[in-house]
């Protein structure tokens, strides 16, 4: 979040003194790998059956706790289900949780941010206080409260995670809007006699919203991680849904005997977060150099 602000304050005066500094960046190969991984994830969420090798819910108690092998690439779980197929089947659920939670956070943040920056002083003050109050509930505590009221489950967990990210987004969006509103191109539009509504539609909103998509990609991974934490606390997805967080939590109890049950779902969560972050950053960089 402060990255955005930082970029805005970068003094451009020095730009002409030195030749363009090659920015430290992930090698392109990292971006490519991330892109490939995200494509795999998308494929797995849209058509898990094509990518999975077996029925993810096929129980075979006799095959329980098999280590990774040719037949079971990621091994099997405590009920003899094929872990690879479950990981693939869980992609859709986990991504959905991540995307939905981020969307909820962004939507709420957008409403609050727009209210704050356009609602006049009183509304701005009120919204800012509200955002501060929401900030005072650390994410998981807010999530716990939501879960207490509406009961555990993936839907509540998603809403809870989304809600807890909203104040952060609200602040960024408000900051964006305020800085755009005081920008010189908005002033230039006023000088040309453009009405406020037109300025809003043509300049302010588009320029404020585009960076949000980048922000969203960065948020998805974190949303998945927090949803997984709720699953670990037994407040997330329900069995037999193959959600990564739930699988990871289940696997953790068998860490002493079946490492693969913890490692593979964990790798998926970490991998997804890394991939979305790398892509988000690549987009930020492109956006920055394109401006």
């Amino acid at each position: 979040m402060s990255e955005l602000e930082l970029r805005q304050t970068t003094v451009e005066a020095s730009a002409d003194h030195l030749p363009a500094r090659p920015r430290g960046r992930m090698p392109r190969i990292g971006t490519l790998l991330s892109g490939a991984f995200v494509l795999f994830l998308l494929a797995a969420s849209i058509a898990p059956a094509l990518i999975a090798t077996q029925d993810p819910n096929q129980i075979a108690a006799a095959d329980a706790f098999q280590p990774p092998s040719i037949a079971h690439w990621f091994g099997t779980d405590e009920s003899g289900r094929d872990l690879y197929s479950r990981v693939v089947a869980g992609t859709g659920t986990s991504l959905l949780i991540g995307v939905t939670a981020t969307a909820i956070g962004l939507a709420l943040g957008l409403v609050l941010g727009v209210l704050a920056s356009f609602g006049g002083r009183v509304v701005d003050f009120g919204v800012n206080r509200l955002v501060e109050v929401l900030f005072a509930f650390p994410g998981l505590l807010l999530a716990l409260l939501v879960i207490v009221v509406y009961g555990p489950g993936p839907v509540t967990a998603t809403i809870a995670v989304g809600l807890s990210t909203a104040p952060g987004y609200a602040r960024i969006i408000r900051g964006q809007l305020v800085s755009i509103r005081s920008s010189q191109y908005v002033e230039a539009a006023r000088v040309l006699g453009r009405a406020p509504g037109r300025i809003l539609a043509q300049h302010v909103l588009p320029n404020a919203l585009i960076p949000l998509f980048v922000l969203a990609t960065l948020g998805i991974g974190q949303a998945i991680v927090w949803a997984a934490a709720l699953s670990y606390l037994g407040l997330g997805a329900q069995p037999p849904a193959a959600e990564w967080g739930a699988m990871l939590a289940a696997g953790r109890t068998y860490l002493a005997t079946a490492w693969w049950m913890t490692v593979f779902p964990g790798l998926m969560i970490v991998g997804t977060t890394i991939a979305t972050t790398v892509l988000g950053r690549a987009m930020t960089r492109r956006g920055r150099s394109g401006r």
Partner: protein
Amino acid sequence: MTDAGEPVLDVASLRVAFGGAEVVRGVDLMILPGECVAIVGESGSGKSVTARALLGMAGPDSRTSSERLVVAGQELGAASERTWRDVRGARAGLILQDALVSLDPLRPVGREIEDPLRIHRRMSAAERRARMLQLLADVGMPDPELAAGRRSGELSGGLRQRALIASAIALDPPLLIADEPTTALDVTVQARILALIAGIRERGTGVLLISHDLAVVGRLADRVLVMRDGEIIEQGTARKVLEDPSERYTKALIAAVPADSPRGARLSSSESGIGAAPGAAPLATSARTPPSADAAALLAIDHVTKTFPVPGGRFTAVDDVSLSLRRGETLGLVGESGSGKTTVARLALALTPPDHGAVFLDGQEWSTIDERRRRPARHRIGAIYQDPLSSFDPRWSVRRILADAADRGRRDAPAFALRELLDQVGLAASVADRRPLTLSGGQRQRVSIARALAASPDVLICDEPVSALDVTIQAQILDLLDELQRERGLALLFISHDLGVVRHMADRVAVMRAGRIVESGDAERVFVRPEHSYTAQLVADAPRLGI
């Protein structure tokens, strides 16, 4: 100390490359003790890279090579970073452009000045402090004790530049490299800093001065090197180069300086990239007809006052200012930074309401009426900004920017003539689909002017429209504005800190200081026979060509 004969800097065939691109291509340079050598050139000429390469700091991905690189008697051709560190600060000091960012804004300037002492000398903290205070006193810092504890942001521009100089000369290095040392400063301050550097040179220090500003160079340099595309294309004594240049490029550079060019004279040649020779052909378009003195004012600012709230009271930015601007006339508004020029511009544009007084456009109430009623007339008064890039929506192409500006929201708006507009401001039709970010500084300002013109204004408010541009580009833009004014009968409110530019552009001039107009009148009269002492000081301090 080096003795008088031995050069403090002796470079032969210096080359610097970034990746495959060579930006400094075989520069030879020698500076003797007490000598000031200047390198002039426009942005991208390689002058700054040269300066840094002399300290072994050309940049992370650069390759530097030279046949000979001797600083204060030490050969540094293949020096290690360790050796370089011993040279920097001790044998060669560096002064950069703006001390606000060239001194660490988080550290007291005293610490910054003590740094070279700490790095290169074994001294006790008390000795260091004493030396630091002495240095501050030497560079003319009032109350060194107090200043030492302040951060660069808490000092005025001139004072912090002095602090920066103090840190560069802390160890009395034989060589001082000054890279655009006065560029961001107001003229009066600039004059004092130049005097300070001259004093350092007097003490026997060799100075390498890097500047884009020929006038600054003229004041200080013994010898001048003109740099272009990484090469020294001309060199000689300052007098020789400035008064009798042999290269076409140098001639163009000198011609482009507006200071002593008469009103209406052309500054640039039609050849792209190179200014015209001095006194080149007069403008091809119709001759200038000065506006009649008694024509009604198109824009009238009438006893306007504007204050802003600050903790513990209100700050008066504009104090009882009255100005009037007639059709076809250029009114120059000069003043140092913080004098209230920009606030006047915003008041004229009705972007901010005055506390007292009023602004009239063509005799009609302008500043006091409702924004809804003002909006339909806004197209009559346009604006050009110092930084055109930030005045464009970053997502929009040139075409969209101009199309949007041409559309006044009327249903019967004439078909938008993009090509004609681009042609008028001297841009190729091919830029239409590019985004301003990908254009050069001069092109951007042309787009900015085209945008203002698209709305068919009567008045243009130009707030420092050329301060960010190289001198040849500046010349082109100034010529363009001149031309357009002639063709369209535009009234220009031309705001600038640069007296030379204003003198070249303005029919009448108003001088602003601390929110008030201290003097106004016919441009020639004000510059030649200033009545107010402040104006006289400004004129005296303004650097100009010639020695």
